[in-house]
């Protein structure tokens, strides 16, 4: 009846009916109004259906949730193929009964024009009584590893939990529980800055979304050193804004646990072991003739120098400098560097011994003793 109030006389006979959809629950359509569409959306192949004489379609913005009153509002457009310029808009109210996932469903429709009734199906979004968790992220059981002094991209795997409806990730941001640990955190699409992208029905994507982490090494070092019994050093909350047809944009926050690797004392241990390995190599190649006392002295010197270099390197990086060897920038906070330092210092056992001797004979270390010996004299 309402339709008759709004339609011009020549269009008053046209009617559109949508049948209910049965899924895990039920979704009912109630036709509310019909009027002449002044600015209909362009016809599209995705949300459309056709009978012999009529096209029926909907624009992607023509469905909206009305949370205030627990229904969904639809606008569908019908045009006669014979006179496509004249478009009639039909407003429907959609209500769900029962809980089911939001989905695209084939909805049977009837175009009624006087005595003529034509029937076909149109694919429309329908919605469950309870809004779904639309995007999830399977995070590894262990925290993601991040090097203490190196930029790192952590992939954020995401899954569209809707098996029959695409979701658009329209926005992304990331915030740390401890902002002092990081330079500004970026969310990226691979290596490029973030841009909205579509996640198809039920699809998973483990590689597109990444957070780019660049630690502030001094804070990270302190946090990692005094981690205690916690299995992570920080939580980065990645907030994605997700949009599906008909629903409001919805933020989904994914907590990403990270830990700094390796644990700093481990590095010193690795340097220590590296120095022993280097010393063994030295024994095989050169130090066979030395007495065991001398050999152990060389070992001790190698270990001491290795540890000194490693700690000095760490201090340099913490002081925002770089540790360079032959034009190669070395990160003393990584295990290979720590091992390399140890091995080299071990191999250069004689040099290490001489270096320690020269250090011990430096004026700064002889100052107190020198005065004392003068007094004795």
């Amino acid at each position: 009846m309402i339709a008759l109030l709004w339609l011009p006389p020549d269009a008053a006979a046209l009617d559109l009916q949508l049948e209910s959809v049965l899924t895990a629950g039920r979704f009912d359509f109630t036709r509310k109004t019909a009027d002449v569409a002044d600015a209909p959306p362009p016809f599209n192949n995705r949300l459309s259906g056709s009978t012999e004489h009529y096209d029926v379609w909907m624009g992607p913005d023509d469905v909206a949730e009305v949370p205030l009153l627990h229904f969904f509002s639809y606008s569908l457009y019908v045009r006669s193929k014979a006179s496509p310029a004249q478009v009639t808009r039909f407003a429907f109210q959609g209500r769900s009964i029962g809980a089911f996932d939001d989905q695209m469903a084939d909805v049977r429709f009837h175009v009624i024009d006087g005595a003529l009734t034509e029937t076909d199906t149109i694919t429309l979004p329908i919605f469950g009584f309870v809004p779904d968790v639309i995007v999830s992220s399977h995070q590894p059981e262990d925290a993601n590893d991040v090097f203490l002094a190196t930029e790192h991209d952590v992939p954020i795997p995401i899954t569209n939990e809707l098996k029959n409806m695409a979701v658009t990730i329209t926005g992304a941001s990331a915030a740390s529980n401890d902002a002092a640990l990081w330079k500004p955190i970026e969310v990226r699409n691979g290596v490029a800055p973030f841009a909205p992208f579509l996640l198809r029905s039920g699809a998973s994507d483990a590689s597109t979304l990444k957070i780019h982490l660049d630690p502030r090494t001094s804070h990270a070092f302190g946090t990692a050193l005094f981690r205690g019994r916690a299995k992570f050093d920080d939580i980065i909350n990645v907030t994605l804004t997700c949009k599906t047809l008909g629903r409001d944009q919805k933020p989904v926050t994914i907590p990403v646990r990270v830990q700094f690797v390796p644990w700093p004392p481990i590095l010193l241990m690795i340097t220590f072991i590296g120095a022993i390995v280097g010393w063994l190599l030295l024994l095989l190649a050169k130090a066979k003739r030395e007495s065991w006392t001398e050999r152990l002295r060389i070992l001790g010197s190698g270990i001491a120098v290795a540890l000194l270099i490693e700690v000095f390197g760490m201090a340099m990086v913490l002081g925002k400098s770089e540790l360079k060897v032959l034009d190669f920038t070395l990160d003393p906070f990584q295990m290979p560097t720590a091992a390399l330092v140890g091995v080299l210092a071990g191999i250069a056992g004689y040099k290490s011994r001489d270096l320690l001797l020269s250090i011990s004979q430096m004026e700064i270390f002889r100052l107190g003793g020198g005065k004392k010996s003068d007094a004795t004299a």
Partner: protein
Amino acid sequence: MLLVAQLRFQPAALTTLASGELAMLDTRNGVAKLSSSNAVTHLINGFGAYSASGFAEVGNGEFLVTQEMRFKSSATLIRLARFNTSGSRSSEWVLPPGGALAGIVVDPVTRTAYCTDSQTNAVYRLAIDNPKATYAVVTRMPEAGNLGPIALDVPRRRLLIGDVQKGAIVSVGMDDRKIITLDARTVAEPVAIAADTKNDRVFIADASARRIWCGNLSKWKLQPFNVAQKLGFPIGLAIARDGSLWVADAKQNVVYRFDTRDGRTLQIVKP
């Protein structure tokens, strides 16, 4: 683990505060008010896991909000919550399972709240100053589609209620509980009703028809209220103190204030 954060404010229901300022309800993000200097201030910062479907001012800066929390696995939690002036929930009245509170209006004289139930199509009455009060059924309308908005017509001692699904407006006597169908043909989808008892007028937001109807409270003859703006999805109405009409448009996410004499746009608020 998934956490939900806040998004932008989307006004749905509207009401005019005793101070004359406009209050706006966002079903998820809380309540905000528009001060006389046009500043938007949040009064209630979000409803947590609940979503709101209606609200009314108690009279002293406090609000009553109808709320629900839906679960896939169990019954929906429905309650009427009272929020104090600092925006904290001070009391609540839980509705027994099976219903779904929609609209709410408060009679400031008797300190009684009237709520519609869109699931059972009942109208409830609740003494708002009694935290232990229970919902008393004013009437049930089994033949209705889905009851939604509710307004108070104090001079005629009646409630005006919209049936959102069937497109009808009914009145329910506050004393005699008599039900009268006022309109079942004109309005297609009545989502908001604003009664201006001072000027004997009523305004009804017809969402799917994208228009506002106005009429006379005593004679009840509705006619289109033509406004200067093209409306996308009018969802909320409130009568301003000066007699002008506030209209929340859910599609455009704006609130308009119209001159009720000629439909001229007096103000546009974009929260």
